[in-house]
Protein backbone atom coordinates (compact mmCIF):
# COMPACT_ATOMS: atom_id res chain seq x y z
CA UNK A 1 0.00 0.00 0.00
CA UNK A 2 2.76 2.42 0.98
CA UNK A 3 4.69 1.60 -2.14
CA UNK A 4 1.62 2.30 -4.21
CA UNK A 5 1.12 5.63 -2.44
CA UNK A 6 4.70 6.66 -3.04
CA UNK A 7 4.30 5.70 -6.69
CA UNK A 8 1.25 7.90 -7.01
CA UNK A 9 3.00 10.80 -5.42
CA UNK A 10 5.87 10.66 -7.87
CA UNK A 11 3.45 10.53 -10.75
CA UNK A 12 1.60 13.54 -9.31
CA UNK A 13 4.73 15.62 -8.99
CA UNK A 14 5.58 14.98 -12.60
CA UNK A 15 2.24 16.23 -13.78
CA UNK A 16 2.51 19.84 -14.89
CA UNK A 17 -0.81 20.34 -16.61
CA UNK A 18 -4.39 20.16 -15.36
CA UNK A 19 -7.87 20.73 -16.69
CA UNK A 20 -8.92 23.70 -14.54
CA UNK A 21 -12.30 23.31 -12.82
CA UNK A 22 -13.12 26.61 -11.08
CA UNK A 23 -16.81 25.65 -10.57
CA UNK A 24 -19.66 28.17 -10.25
CA UNK A 25 -19.38 29.92 -6.90
CA UNK A 26 -15.79 31.13 -7.25
CA UNK A 27 -15.89 32.43 -10.85
CA UNK A 28 -19.27 34.11 -10.27
CA UNK A 29 -19.18 35.35 -6.67
CA UNK A 30 -15.49 35.28 -5.71
CA UNK A 31 -13.51 35.90 -8.92
CA UNK A 32 -10.57 37.26 -6.89
CA UNK A 33 -10.08 33.75 -5.44
CA UNK A 34 -9.97 32.40 -9.00
CA UNK A 35 -7.40 35.04 -9.97
CA UNK A 36 -5.19 34.33 -6.91
CA UNK A 37 -5.50 30.57 -7.42
CA UNK A 38 -4.58 30.75 -11.10
CA UNK A 39 -1.56 32.94 -10.32
CA UNK A 40 -0.19 30.81 -7.46
CA UNK A 41 -0.72 27.52 -9.30
CA UNK A 42 0.95 28.91 -12.42
CA UNK A 43 3.87 30.06 -10.25
CA UNK A 44 4.25 26.46 -9.05
CA UNK A 45 5.09 25.64 -12.66
CA UNK A 46 1.70 24.05 -13.33
CA UNK A 47 -0.21 24.85 -16.51
CA UNK A 48 -3.99 25.26 -16.27
CA UNK A 49 -6.17 24.44 -19.26
CA UNK A 50 -9.70 25.88 -19.43
CA UNK A 51 -12.30 23.45 -20.72
CA UNK A 52 -16.02 23.43 -21.48
CA UNK A 53 -17.19 22.30 -18.03
CA UNK A 54 -20.64 22.80 -16.51
CA UNK A 55 -21.61 22.95 -12.81
CA UNK A 56 -20.09 19.83 -11.19
CA UNK A 57 -23.24 19.49 -10.50
CA UNK A 58 -23.97 20.19 -6.84
CA UNK A 59 -26.26 18.51 -4.29
CA UNK A 60 -29.36 20.30 -5.57
CA UNK A 61 -29.15 18.17 -8.70
CA UNK A 62 -28.11 15.10 -6.69
CA UNK A 63 -31.21 15.52 -4.49
CA UNK A 64 -33.48 15.98 -7.50
CA UNK A 65 -32.22 13.16 -9.70
CA UNK A 66 -29.14 11.22 -8.74
CA UNK A 67 -28.78 9.75 -12.23
CA UNK A 68 -28.81 13.19 -13.86
CA UNK A 69 -26.20 14.24 -11.30
CA UNK A 70 -24.01 11.30 -12.22
CA UNK A 71 -24.37 11.80 -15.99
CA UNK A 72 -23.60 15.52 -15.78
CA UNK A 73 -20.56 14.82 -13.57
CA UNK A 74 -19.45 12.11 -16.01
CA UNK A 75 -19.76 14.61 -18.87
CA UNK A 76 -17.25 16.85 -17.09
CA UNK A 77 -14.93 13.92 -16.42
CA UNK A 78 -15.23 12.79 -20.05
CA UNK A 79 -14.27 16.23 -21.37
CA UNK A 80 -11.09 16.23 -19.25
CA UNK A 81 -10.38 12.66 -20.38
CA UNK A 82 -10.75 13.64 -24.03
CA UNK A 83 -8.03 16.24 -23.42
CA UNK A 84 -5.92 13.57 -21.63
CA UNK A 85 -5.86 15.68 -18.46
CA UNK A 86 -6.59 15.25 -14.77
CA UNK A 87 -8.80 17.85 -13.08
CA UNK A 88 -7.76 20.55 -10.61
CA UNK A 89 -10.68 21.90 -8.53
CA UNK A 90 -11.03 25.00 -6.33
CA UNK A 91 -14.35 24.36 -4.63
CA UNK A 92 -15.30 21.83 -1.94
CA UNK A 93 -18.57 20.82 -3.53
CA UNK A 94 -17.04 20.25 -6.99
CA UNK A 95 -14.32 18.15 -5.41
CA UNK A 96 -16.83 15.94 -3.60
CA UNK A 97 -19.12 15.54 -6.61
CA UNK A 98 -16.39 14.71 -9.10
CA UNK A 99 -14.51 12.36 -6.77
CA UNK A 100 -17.69 10.60 -5.64
CA UNK A 101 -19.01 10.24 -9.20
CA UNK A 102 -15.64 8.93 -10.32
CA UNK A 103 -15.72 6.28 -7.57
CA UNK A 104 -19.31 5.28 -8.36
CA UNK A 105 -18.46 4.96 -12.06
CA UNK A 106 -15.98 2.19 -11.26
CA UNK A 107 -19.16 0.08 -11.40
CA UNK A 108 -19.00 -1.03 -15.05
CA UNK A 109 -22.76 -1.53 -15.41
CA UNK A 110 -23.46 1.96 -14.10
CA UNK A 111 -20.75 3.38 -16.39
CA UNK A 112 -22.43 1.66 -19.36
CA UNK A 113 -25.80 3.23 -18.47
CA UNK A 114 -24.20 6.66 -18.07
CA UNK A 115 -22.30 6.38 -21.34
CA UNK A 116 -25.55 5.55 -23.11
CA UNK A 117 -26.80 9.00 -22.09
CA UNK A 118 -23.50 10.66 -22.97
CA UNK A 119 -23.74 9.16 -26.48
CA UNK A 120 -26.46 11.73 -27.19
CA UNK A 121 -23.90 14.50 -26.93
CA UNK A 122 -21.07 12.50 -28.48
CA UNK A 123 -18.87 11.99 -25.43
CA UNK A 124 -17.87 8.84 -23.56
CA UNK A 125 -16.14 8.30 -20.23
CA UNK A 126 -13.65 5.50 -19.60
CA UNK A 127 -12.85 6.17 -15.95
CA UNK A 128 -9.25 7.35 -16.32
CA UNK A 129 -9.40 10.88 -14.84
CA UNK A 130 -8.11 11.81 -11.37
CA UNK A 131 -9.40 14.79 -9.40
CA UNK A 132 -7.28 17.01 -7.20
CA UNK A 133 -8.30 20.00 -5.09
CA UNK A 134 -5.96 23.01 -5.03
CA UNK A 135 -5.09 22.33 -1.34
CA UNK A 136 -3.96 18.83 -2.31
CA UNK A 137 -1.72 20.32 -4.98
CA UNK A 138 -0.29 22.79 -2.45
CA UNK A 139 0.24 19.97 0.05
CA UNK A 140 2.17 17.95 -2.53
CA UNK A 141 4.19 21.05 -3.39
CA UNK A 142 5.05 22.03 0.20
CA UNK A 143 8.69 22.76 -0.57
CA UNK A 144 7.86 25.08 -3.45
CA UNK A 145 5.13 26.68 -1.35
CA UNK A 146 7.73 27.58 1.30
CA UNK A 147 9.47 29.54 -1.43
CA UNK A 148 6.39 31.76 -1.77
CA UNK A 149 6.72 33.00 1.82
CA UNK A 150 8.15 36.50 1.69
CA UNK A 151 6.46 37.73 4.87
CA UNK A 152 6.12 34.91 7.42
CA UNK A 153 2.91 35.39 9.43
CA UNK A 154 4.63 34.54 12.69
CA UNK A 155 2.55 36.67 15.04
CA UNK A 156 -0.68 35.21 13.72
CA UNK A 157 -2.57 32.48 15.56
CA UNK A 158 -4.99 30.63 13.32
CA UNK A 159 -7.44 27.75 13.53
CA UNK A 160 -8.55 25.87 10.45
CA UNK A 161 -11.79 24.54 9.01
CA UNK A 162 -11.23 22.34 5.95
CA UNK A 163 -14.88 21.90 4.94
CA UNK A 164 -17.22 18.88 4.87
CA UNK A 165 -17.20 18.43 1.12
CA UNK A 166 -13.44 18.10 1.05
CA UNK A 167 -13.32 15.61 3.92
CA UNK A 168 -16.29 13.28 3.82
CA UNK A 169 -16.80 10.51 2.95
CA UNK A 170 -13.05 9.98 3.30
CA UNK A 171 -13.16 6.53 1.69
CA UNK A 172 -14.15 8.26 -1.56
CA UNK A 173 -12.43 11.64 -1.23
CA UNK A 174 -9.09 10.48 0.25
CA UNK A 175 -8.25 14.06 1.19
CA UNK A 176 -7.35 13.94 4.89
CA UNK A 177 -8.29 12.24 8.17
CA UNK A 178 -11.99 13.14 8.29
CA UNK A 179 -12.20 13.03 12.11
CA UNK A 180 -8.99 14.94 12.77
CA UNK A 181 -7.91 16.84 9.65
CA UNK A 182 -4.35 18.17 9.77
CA UNK A 183 -3.34 19.13 6.23
CA UNK A 184 -4.74 22.67 6.32
CA UNK A 185 -3.02 23.14 9.70
CA UNK A 186 0.27 22.12 8.16
CA UNK A 187 -0.27 24.33 5.12
CA UNK A 188 -0.94 27.28 7.45
CA UNK A 189 2.12 26.65 9.60
CA UNK A 190 4.30 26.60 6.46
CA UNK A 191 3.28 30.27 6.07
CA UNK A 192 4.58 30.98 9.57
CA UNK A 193 1.25 30.89 11.46
CA UNK A 194 0.82 29.33 14.88
CA UNK A 195 -1.98 26.80 14.58
CA UNK A 196 -4.45 26.37 17.45
CA UNK A 197 -6.49 23.18 17.54
CA UNK A 198 -10.11 23.19 18.74
CA UNK A 199 -12.81 20.64 19.40
CA UNK A 200 -15.48 21.60 16.84
CA UNK A 201 -13.03 21.51 13.93
CA UNK A 202 -15.16 19.21 11.76
CA UNK A 203 -18.51 20.88 12.56
CA UNK A 204 -20.41 21.73 9.36
CA UNK A 205 -20.96 25.42 8.47
CA UNK A 206 -24.65 24.68 7.83
CA UNK A 207 -24.90 26.72 4.64
CA UNK A 208 -27.14 24.20 2.85
CA UNK A 209 -29.92 24.69 5.41
CA UNK A 210 -29.25 28.32 6.37
CA UNK A 211 -32.14 29.78 4.36
CA UNK A 212 -34.75 27.50 5.94
CA UNK A 213 -33.36 27.00 9.47
CA UNK A 214 -31.52 30.22 10.19
CA UNK A 215 -31.67 30.22 14.02
CA UNK A 216 -30.46 26.62 14.30
CA UNK A 217 -27.54 27.27 11.97
CA UNK A 218 -26.60 30.48 13.80
CA UNK A 219 -26.53 28.46 17.01
CA UNK A 220 -24.04 26.02 15.48
CA UNK A 221 -21.85 28.80 14.07
CA UNK A 222 -21.83 30.52 17.46
CA UNK A 223 -20.71 27.29 19.13
CA UNK A 224 -17.83 26.99 16.68
CA UNK A 225 -16.73 30.63 16.83
CA UNK A 226 -16.79 30.57 20.66
CA UNK A 227 -14.66 27.42 20.59
CA UNK A 228 -11.85 29.07 18.62
CA UNK A 229 -8.95 30.73 20.46
CA UNK A 230 -7.16 32.25 17.48
CA UNK A 231 -6.84 35.53 15.57
CA UNK A 232 -8.44 34.14 12.42
CA UNK A 233 -10.25 31.12 11.00
CA UNK A 234 -8.67 29.72 7.83
CA UNK A 235 -11.04 27.78 5.58
CA UNK A 236 -10.41 25.47 2.64
CA UNK A 237 -13.87 25.84 1.12
CA UNK A 238 -15.25 29.00 -0.51
CA UNK A 239 -18.83 28.19 0.52
CA UNK A 240 -17.81 27.95 4.18
CA UNK A 241 -15.90 31.24 3.71
CA UNK A 242 -19.08 33.07 2.66
CA UNK A 243 -21.19 31.35 5.32
CA UNK A 244 -18.92 32.20 8.27
CA UNK A 245 -18.71 35.81 7.11
CA UNK A 246 -22.45 36.14 6.63
CA UNK A 247 -23.46 34.34 9.84
CA UNK A 248 -21.04 36.35 11.99
CA UNK A 249 -22.47 39.57 10.64
CA UNK A 250 -25.80 38.52 12.18
CA UNK A 251 -24.20 37.10 15.34
CA UNK A 252 -22.12 40.27 15.75
CA UNK A 253 -18.96 38.27 16.47
CA UNK A 254 -15.67 39.37 14.96
CA UNK A 255 -13.43 36.43 14.08
CA UNK A 256 -11.87 37.17 10.68
CA UNK A 257 -12.41 34.32 8.23
CA UNK A 258 -9.89 33.90 5.44
CA UNK A 259 -9.76 31.40 2.62
CA UNK A 260 -6.37 29.68 2.47
CA UNK A 261 -5.63 31.37 -0.86
CA UNK A 262 -5.92 34.75 0.93
CA UNK A 263 -3.58 33.63 3.72
CA UNK A 264 -1.07 32.48 1.10
CA UNK A 265 -1.43 35.90 -0.53
CA UNK A 266 -0.62 37.67 2.75
CA UNK A 267 2.44 35.48 3.33
CA UNK A 268 3.52 36.20 -0.23
CA UNK A 269 3.53 39.93 0.55
CA UNK A 270 0.09 40.98 -0.72
CA UNK A 271 -1.69 43.72 1.23
CA UNK A 272 -5.05 43.19 2.94
CA UNK A 273 -6.60 45.25 0.15
CA UNK A 274 -5.07 43.00 -2.50
CA UNK A 275 -6.44 39.78 -0.97
CA UNK A 276 -9.95 41.24 -0.87
CA UNK A 277 -10.14 41.83 2.90
CA UNK A 278 -11.79 45.21 2.34
CA UNK A 279 -14.07 44.10 -0.48
CA UNK A 280 -14.98 40.42 0.10
CA UNK A 281 -14.47 39.81 3.83
CA UNK A 282 -17.33 41.10 5.91
CA UNK A 283 -15.80 40.57 9.34
CA UNK A 284 -13.06 43.04 10.19
CA UNK A 285 -10.92 42.96 13.30
CA UNK A 286 -8.33 45.59 14.28
CA UNK A 287 -6.30 43.24 16.50
CA UNK A 288 -5.97 40.81 13.58
CA UNK A 289 -4.92 43.57 11.18
CA UNK A 290 -2.27 44.82 13.61
CA UNK A 291 -0.82 41.34 14.14
CA UNK A 292 0.02 41.17 10.44
CA UNK A 293 2.53 43.96 10.95
CA UNK A 294 4.34 42.38 13.89
CA UNK A 295 7.60 40.65 13.08
CA UNK A 296 8.61 37.99 15.57
CA UNK A 297 12.36 38.31 16.23
Amino acid at each position, binding site marked *: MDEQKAGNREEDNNQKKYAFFPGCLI*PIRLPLFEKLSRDFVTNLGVELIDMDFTCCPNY*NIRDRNRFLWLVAAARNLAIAERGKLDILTLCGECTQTLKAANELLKDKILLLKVNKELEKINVQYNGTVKIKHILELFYESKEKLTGFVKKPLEALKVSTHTGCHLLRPSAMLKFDDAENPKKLDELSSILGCQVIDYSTKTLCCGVA*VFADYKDSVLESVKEKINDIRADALIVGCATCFLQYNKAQLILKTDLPVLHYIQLLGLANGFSLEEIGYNSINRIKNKAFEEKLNITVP
Partner: protein
Amino acid sequence: MTRINFEFRKKVLEEIPELKKCFQCGTCVSSCYAEKYIGSYSPRKKILGALYGDKEVLSKELWKCATCNACDERCPQGVNPYEVLTKLKNIAVRENICPESFREKSDIIIETGYAFLIDEKVNNNRKALGLKEIKPKESLRFVKNG
Protein backbone atom coordinates in the same frame (compact mmCIF):
# COMPACT_ATOMS: atom_id res chain seq x y z
CA MET B 1 -48.31 -2.22 16.25
CA THR B 2 -46.71 -0.80 13.13
CA ARG B 3 -48.43 -1.92 9.95
CA ILE B 4 -46.15 -2.51 7.00
CA ASN B 5 -47.02 -1.03 3.61
CA PHE B 6 -45.57 -3.87 1.55
CA GLU B 7 -46.20 -2.17 -1.78
CA PHE B 8 -44.19 0.96 -0.93
CA ARG B 9 -41.56 -1.10 0.93
CA LYS B 10 -40.99 -3.16 -2.24
CA LYS B 11 -40.67 -0.03 -4.39
CA VAL B 12 -38.19 1.59 -1.99
CA LEU B 13 -36.09 -1.56 -1.63
CA GLU B 14 -35.81 -1.90 -5.40
CA GLU B 15 -34.24 1.56 -5.54
CA ILE B 16 -32.38 1.44 -2.23
CA PRO B 17 -31.43 -2.20 -1.51
CA GLU B 18 -28.72 -1.11 0.95
CA LEU B 19 -31.48 -0.21 3.42
CA LYS B 20 -31.51 -3.89 4.43
CA LYS B 21 -27.97 -3.62 5.79
CA CYS B 22 -29.01 -1.16 8.53
CA PHE B 23 -29.08 -2.69 12.04
CA GLN B 24 -30.42 0.52 13.63
CA CYS B 25 -27.37 1.28 15.78
CA GLY B 26 -27.95 5.06 15.69
CA THR B 27 -24.36 6.11 14.90
CA CYS B 28 -25.80 8.27 12.10
CA VAL B 29 -28.11 10.04 14.58
CA SER B 30 -25.34 10.93 17.01
CA SER B 31 -23.22 12.25 14.10
CA CYS B 32 -26.03 14.24 12.50
CA TYR B 33 -25.83 18.05 12.23
CA ALA B 34 -29.56 18.36 11.48
CA GLU B 35 -30.57 16.20 14.45
CA LYS B 36 -28.38 18.20 16.84
CA TYR B 37 -29.09 21.77 15.70
CA ILE B 38 -32.43 21.68 13.84
CA GLY B 39 -33.99 18.77 15.70
CA SER B 40 -36.46 15.99 14.92
CA TYR B 41 -34.36 14.58 12.14
CA SER B 42 -33.16 11.06 12.68
CA PRO B 43 -31.56 9.26 9.72
CA ARG B 44 -32.05 6.01 11.65
CA LYS B 45 -35.81 6.56 11.95
CA LYS B 46 -36.05 7.56 8.29
CA ILE B 47 -34.34 4.29 7.35
CA LEU B 48 -36.63 2.30 9.66
CA GLY B 49 -39.65 4.11 8.22
CA ALA B 50 -38.55 3.23 4.68
CA LEU B 51 -38.15 -0.43 5.72
CA TYR B 52 -41.72 -0.37 7.08
CA GLY B 53 -42.86 1.10 3.76
CA ASP B 54 -44.11 4.16 5.63
CA LYS B 55 -44.80 6.87 3.02
CA GLU B 56 -44.43 9.52 5.72
CA VAL B 57 -40.67 9.34 5.21
CA LEU B 58 -41.21 11.26 1.97
CA SER B 59 -41.55 14.71 3.46
CA LYS B 60 -40.03 18.16 3.17
CA GLU B 61 -38.24 17.27 6.42
CA LEU B 62 -35.70 15.39 4.30
CA TRP B 63 -34.31 18.79 3.34
CA LYS B 64 -33.13 19.38 6.90
CA CYS B 65 -29.97 17.50 5.87
CA ALA B 66 -27.00 19.88 5.77
CA THR B 67 -25.13 17.46 3.42
CA CYS B 68 -22.22 17.22 5.88
CA ASN B 69 -21.77 13.50 5.16
CA ALA B 70 -20.84 12.64 8.77
CA CYS B 71 -23.31 9.72 8.71
CA ASP B 72 -21.69 8.19 5.63
CA GLU B 73 -18.29 8.64 7.24
CA ARG B 74 -19.22 6.80 10.42
CA CYS B 75 -21.84 4.20 9.44
CA PRO B 76 -20.35 0.86 10.54
CA GLN B 77 -22.56 -1.10 8.17
CA GLY B 78 -21.77 0.72 4.92
CA VAL B 79 -25.43 1.71 4.54
CA ASN B 80 -24.30 5.23 3.58
CA PRO B 81 -27.28 7.03 5.15
CA TYR B 82 -26.53 10.26 3.27
CA GLU B 83 -26.85 8.41 -0.03
CA VAL B 84 -30.00 6.63 1.20
CA LEU B 85 -31.57 9.97 2.18
CA THR B 86 -30.58 11.43 -1.20
CA LYS B 87 -32.33 8.54 -2.91
CA LEU B 88 -35.41 9.11 -0.72
CA LYS B 89 -35.31 12.77 -1.78
CA ASN B 90 -35.26 11.66 -5.43
CA ILE B 91 -38.44 9.63 -4.82
CA ALA B 92 -40.02 12.55 -2.91
CA VAL B 93 -39.25 14.95 -5.79
CA ARG B 94 -40.93 12.58 -8.25
CA GLU B 95 -44.01 12.63 -6.00
CA ASN B 96 -43.75 16.43 -5.96
CA ILE B 97 -42.83 16.63 -2.29
CA CYS B 98 -40.01 19.17 -1.85
CA PRO B 99 -39.44 22.75 -0.69
CA GLU B 100 -40.38 25.48 -3.22
CA SER B 101 -36.89 26.99 -3.33
CA PHE B 102 -35.37 23.63 -4.16
CA ARG B 103 -36.80 23.37 -7.68
CA GLU B 104 -35.66 26.88 -8.56
CA LYS B 105 -32.09 26.16 -7.43
CA SER B 106 -31.85 22.97 -9.46
CA ASP B 107 -33.69 24.49 -12.48
CA ILE B 108 -30.97 27.14 -12.82
CA ILE B 109 -28.32 24.44 -13.10
CA ILE B 110 -30.32 22.36 -15.59
CA GLU B 111 -31.03 25.36 -17.81
CA THR B 112 -27.74 27.28 -17.62
CA GLY B 113 -25.12 24.74 -16.56
CA TYR B 114 -24.17 27.07 -13.69
CA ALA B 115 -25.47 27.07 -10.10
CA PHE B 116 -25.88 30.86 -10.12
CA LEU B 117 -27.17 33.32 -12.68
CA ILE B 118 -24.55 35.25 -14.59
CA ASP B 119 -25.25 38.93 -15.17
CA GLU B 120 -23.28 41.82 -16.60
CA LYS B 121 -21.89 42.73 -13.18
CA VAL B 122 -20.30 39.29 -12.84
CA ASN B 123 -18.39 39.71 -16.07
CA ASN B 124 -17.44 43.30 -15.29
CA ASN B 125 -15.87 42.10 -12.04
CA ARG B 126 -14.06 39.35 -13.91
CA LYS B 127 -12.84 41.71 -16.60
CA ALA B 128 -11.42 44.08 -13.97
CA LEU B 129 -9.29 41.17 -12.68
CA GLY B 130 -8.17 40.16 -16.18
CA LEU B 131 -10.30 36.98 -16.11
CA LYS B 132 -12.16 35.61 -19.13
CA GLU B 133 -15.87 36.28 -19.61
CA ILE B 134 -18.24 33.43 -18.69
CA LYS B 135 -21.52 32.56 -20.37
CA PRO B 136 -24.35 30.09 -19.63
CA LYS B 137 -23.54 26.57 -20.87
CA GLU B 138 -25.48 24.00 -22.81
CA SER B 139 -28.58 22.69 -21.04
CA LEU B 140 -28.33 19.47 -19.02
CA ARG B 141 -31.74 18.44 -20.35
CA PHE B 142 -30.20 15.84 -22.66
CA VAL B 143 -30.61 13.34 -19.83
CA LYS B 144 -33.98 11.63 -19.76
CA ASN B 145 -36.24 12.41 -16.78
CA GLY B 146 -34.10 15.49 -16.11
